[in-house]
């Protein structure tokens, strides 16, 4: 399934707000399978780029193709996204998942409980989702994204505010999901996390792609100056 909507071809895409180019003529190809991380300093355009890929923000120029098709509802149904600040519907944990599942004809109580169990929230199924802790909300958001059995999973800084224990739980799930064939595209500014997860890295700075390379090569010997400075812990402005 995944092969049909990957690789993802970004061809000269730009997003302009006022006189600012937030995404500046980005072109690259994201291959199917594995985990791609998008890295860069704050304001580099990382989150905006995956919002464009998921169709949440319109691009002003260029094209994005999933396989050979531009983004449409059919392709979006085969994608899921976990937001940096997840929105919890005013319902129970179970009902939040059930709602997402019914949108994708995957509403099966056993399946929902399996996923909740997988993220360690089955015991909280009847609790209001808005009463969960930050880490639990992120896990529920991940479960809600996974319940639709996506071919592509976008993660936007999904562990940025979590403690190491919660981060580990989520990272383990991400790794397992990635191994099962789902393409994962994760935005992070956590260098350690990118090292742990990434197969390849796209490094953005000022809305432009500075570098796109295999994780091993990127962390060993980054080519671009902004990436070198970023990895060295210098302030990239």
């Amino acid at each position: 399934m995944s092969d049909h909507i990957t690789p993802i071809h970004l061809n000269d895409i730009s997003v302009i707000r006022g006189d600012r180019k937030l995404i500046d003529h980005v072109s690259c190809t994201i291959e199917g399978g594995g985990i791609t991380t998008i890295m860069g300093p704050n304001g580099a355009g990382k989150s905006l780029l995956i919002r464009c890929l998921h169709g949440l923000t319109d691009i002003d120029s260029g094209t994005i193709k999933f396989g050979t098709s531009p983004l449409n509802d059919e392709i979006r149904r085969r994608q899921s996204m976990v937001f940096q600040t997840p929105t919890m519907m005013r319902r129970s944990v179970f009902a939040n998942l059930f709602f997402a599942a019914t949108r994708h004809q995957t509403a099966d109580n056993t399946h929902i409980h399996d996923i909740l169990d997988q993220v360690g929230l089955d015991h909280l199924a009847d609790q209001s989702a808005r009463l969960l802790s930050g880490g639990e909300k992120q896990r529920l958001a991940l479960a809600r994204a996974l319940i639709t059995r996506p071919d592509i999973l976008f993660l936007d800084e999904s562990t940025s505010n979590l403690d190491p224990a919660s981060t580990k739980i989520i990272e383990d799930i991400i790794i397992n999901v990635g191994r099962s064939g789902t393409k994962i595209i994760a935005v992070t500014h956590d260098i350690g996390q990118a090292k742990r997860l990434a197969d390849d890295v796209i490094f953005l700075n000022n809305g432009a792609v500075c570098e796109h390379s295999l994780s091993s090569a990127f962390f060993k010997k980054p080519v671009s100056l902004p990436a070198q400075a970023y990895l060295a812990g210098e302030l990239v402005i």
Partner: protein
Amino acid sequence: MDIYWKSISTAVRLLITADADLIEIILLSVEVSLMALTISCLIGLPIGTFLAIQRFPGRAAAISVLNSLMGLPPVVVGLIVYLHLSRSGPFGWLGLLYTPTAMIIAQILLITPIVAALSCQIIEDLQEDYRDLFTSLVVSKPAAVKAYLIDARYSLLTVVLAGFGRAISEVGAVIIVGGNIDHVTRVMTTTIALETSKGELALALALGIILLAMAMLVNFLATWLKQSAKEQAYV
């Protein structure tokens, strides 16, 4: 202070003895208000929802007009309904003037903008909250509307209760179109106005206390509902 004790004891006596006239007045008040509220909700909720979710030219102006209509002066509404229902008016042939139906119509005109404007605001806020999630999940518009209405149920219920509070305490419009006719269109507020003008302050105050108690009960209910929903994070 004597007048207060006298009126309170009058109110208690009227209630304990289940005074037939008083019960009739209270029941008619509640009946008219509930009927007006039901119809206002049937009209106002869809209008509010439509304005919240649909984008079209003139939407901002429509919302602005709706917000302005929340402050409609009741006597003006009463006058407009009177003009339409009087014998020389366009709907005079229906013979509705000085009937409970005329009072319901006047109250509908007063409550519907409140229900529509407040529900529009509530659903718009929720829509903003859910926007990215629903786009991500490819939620169809009908399914999204259903979700907004379900998830905003507690907030919408407080809107309904606010509408009831407005209806039950309304006097200006209903006295014009109802005529305050004994055993026909006499409700609590119009009786209070009449008894006050007659100098029967004890009965007027007694009815005022009952009306106040009902309004407070509704408000307490609204507050309790919202608070308990908030505690469970459903608001």
